[in-house]
């Protein structure tokens, strides 16, 4: 049975004559009723008791903790907990920090949970002196465990905007890209940083980002992330003005696709289907180079990425009309 830190026996009197309904109660013949174990039933009985009184106390807070540990996705308990925290702690930074400590520990044990992050945002919003650095260790620990955890990356971006601190983000994303060059979440975070910059700053930073992506492509040419990133930088920041240099760079991974009638060796296979897609997008920009785009789409369709044939056919059809 549950070892409670507080006494809840008075609650029994309140619920005594009421029919038992709610979390932890399965009615007879109920569709998809759950066979709750006794411990769970007890946890929820106490939870229903404090909730029915809307009690804002340390023991109520503890009851929500026990309920949340039993069912992390129990949003009703998260909401109630937030009401209690506001009532008990008001705007005391020290006490709200304790709540964040508790949350850190809970988060490490429940990496896939949705509720934690919106709850954490709510706590930071009522905190008198929230600190960006306070948020970093838990985020780093979570990404160390699961480097593409969607909620964690999303929360990190929320923090960056909430606190207005952008300085560490490129370094942070870089460390994860160094660890795994295919980590698209980290690439996406880099793009977030670029979009957060003022337009002229972003334009000045763009050439360094292009070099960065190119260096990573050299490590692994068949990697969609840096190619998408390159396109994103050119289209989003540089007005879709692709320069000759980037075309030459991409051509190095295109094999003999663009000189099929030339004297290239027959084994000159492309090293990256994404390079072909990248070049095709550039070549589609004007009529003169459109035939090259069609050549790339044909090569993708017949050889390098045939499962996506309907897209390549669609692209070719657009170029021909």
């Amino acid at each position, binding site marked *: 049975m549950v070892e409670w830190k507080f006494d809840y026996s008075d609650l029994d009197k309140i619920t005594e004559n009421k029919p038992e309904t709610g979390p932890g109660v399965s009615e007879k013949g109920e569709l998809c009723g759950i066979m709750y174990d006794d411990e*769970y039933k007890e946890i929820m009985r106490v939870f229903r008791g404090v909730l029915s009184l809307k009690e804002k106390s340390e023991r109520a807070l503890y009851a929500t903790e026990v309920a949340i540990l039993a069912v992390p996705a129990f949003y009703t308990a998260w909401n109630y907990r937030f009401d209690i925290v506001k009532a008990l702690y008001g705007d005391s930074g020290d006490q709200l920090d304790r709540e964040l400590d508790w949350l850190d520990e809970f988060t490490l044990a429940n990496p896939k949970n949705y509720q934690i992050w919106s709850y954490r945002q709510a706590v930071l919003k009522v905190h008198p002196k929230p600190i960006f650095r306070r948020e970093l260790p838990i985020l780093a620990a979570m990404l160390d465990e699961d480097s593409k955890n969607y909620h964690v990356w999303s929360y990190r971006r929320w923090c960056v905007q909430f606190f207005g601190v952008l300085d560490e983000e490129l370094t942070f994303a870089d460390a994860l890209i160094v660890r795994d060059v295919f980590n698209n979440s980290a690439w996406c975070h880099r793009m977030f940083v670029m979009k957060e910059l003022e337009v002229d700053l972003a334009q000045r930073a763009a050439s360094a980002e292009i070099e960065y992506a190119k260096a990573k492509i050299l490590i*692994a040419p068949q990697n969609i992330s840096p190619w998408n990133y390159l396109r994103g930088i050119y289209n989003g920041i540089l007005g879709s003005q692709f320069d000759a240099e980037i075309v030459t760079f991409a051509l190095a991974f295109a094999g003999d696709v663009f000189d099929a009638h030339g004297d290239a060796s027959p084994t000159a296979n492309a090293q990256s289907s994404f390079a072909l897609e990248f070049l095709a997008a550039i070549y589609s920009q004007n009529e003169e180079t459109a035939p090259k785009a069609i050549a790339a789409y044909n090569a993708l369709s017949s050889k390098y990425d045939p*499962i996506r044939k309907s897209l390549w056919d*669609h692209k070719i059809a657009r170029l021909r009309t």
Partner: protein
Amino acid sequence: MARRNMKRLNFINGSLLGRKRVVTEQIHLEETEEQGQSEVDVININMLPETETVCDREEVIRDCQELFDKFAGEAHDLMADFHERYLLWAFSDMLPPQMKALEASQPWIIYWIANSLKVMCPGSLTTDTQRRICQKLLKIAEPDGLFAGGQGQLPNLLCTYASIAALALCDNVDDCWEQIDRKAIYNWLMKLKTPDGGFRTCLEVGECDTRGIYCALAVAQMLQIMTSELCQNVKFFLIRCQTYEGGFGACPQGDEAHGGYTFCAVASLAILNEIPVMNIEQLMEWCSARQYNEEKGLSGRSNKLVDGCYSYWIGATSAILEAHGYGDCINKPQLREYILKCCQSSGRPGLRDKPGKSPDFYHTNYIALGLSITEYSFEAKKGPDALVNSSRILRTPETDLQPINPVFGLPSKDLADIIIFNKDRL
């Protein structure tokens, strides 16, 4: 072969024994020469540096390849009767104690199971079961008419979608649709609405992302309580979620493009009749890039693994684009092969994410929906109430999957019925 063994050894070192190799070396030319001798023409992923991403994917490719080899040349059908057992069991017995993790998602369990049955085994959702569905869900909505994760829980937007969708499957048994309090739901939806066009999942601590928008709009459309106030600013929120990759993220803060959030955004724009406001070409590129030559299934993000549930999230997004005349951006026959050969196993009923994973109700539903999409082509009717028509492009000998509406995740007929019913209630 020697090289492959080397790769296996590296995998064991890296993933099983936790020895992570720092990857900085460049691919040398002699390695790429092997490409010419490989069995498939597509660029072989064995050429890539062995990071976590590559090692994980190599595992999946190997598992899928084993199954493709095993079933080579066989016409492999959906084992609908077998899966039906799994679904009916859940409706006849109590769920085991570990299912308490879904305490706050009870309408979802019901929607997943009932919908899977209706799509795969029409006729097996009996009037008696429909009655029990209505009883349970309408009881959750007492006393204020708002749906929640279960009795005694706070009203929740995502659970409201699941509840209305599940009720839509009940053919208005016992006039249950009459008992849905549309006014209460509408007023509550307006309270969940945020100034930037989002919807919180509940009051007051609730996530605000494209899922909330989708659930709000789908519910409003099914119940025919759509107003211009409800839709105010919604499309601007959605436009800001489309990323440089072409898909949509959860929130307009540069979140990564993701299959689930993309579906929610695109289906929402379809309900708003605003498909052209997004960058359609880039969305098509992104959707198409989710399908991998080796596994044939769909992934949810760039450089992530295939997962059967994206057969719906991406498959439906593609079907919505197809319905609006933009062409098909996924390979339906190949997706079918992934579903039929890799997402089911004669050892255990129900559908699964990928080989080696256990089936569950969530995957069973979304994979069944995805499989249905592969059997039909889609066309949208014009006009503000645009509904999607599907026409059959494939008939399989053993099964007869119901046509589904890719915007709402329901069999087309059930969706049309509840919309017509509510239209007449006005």
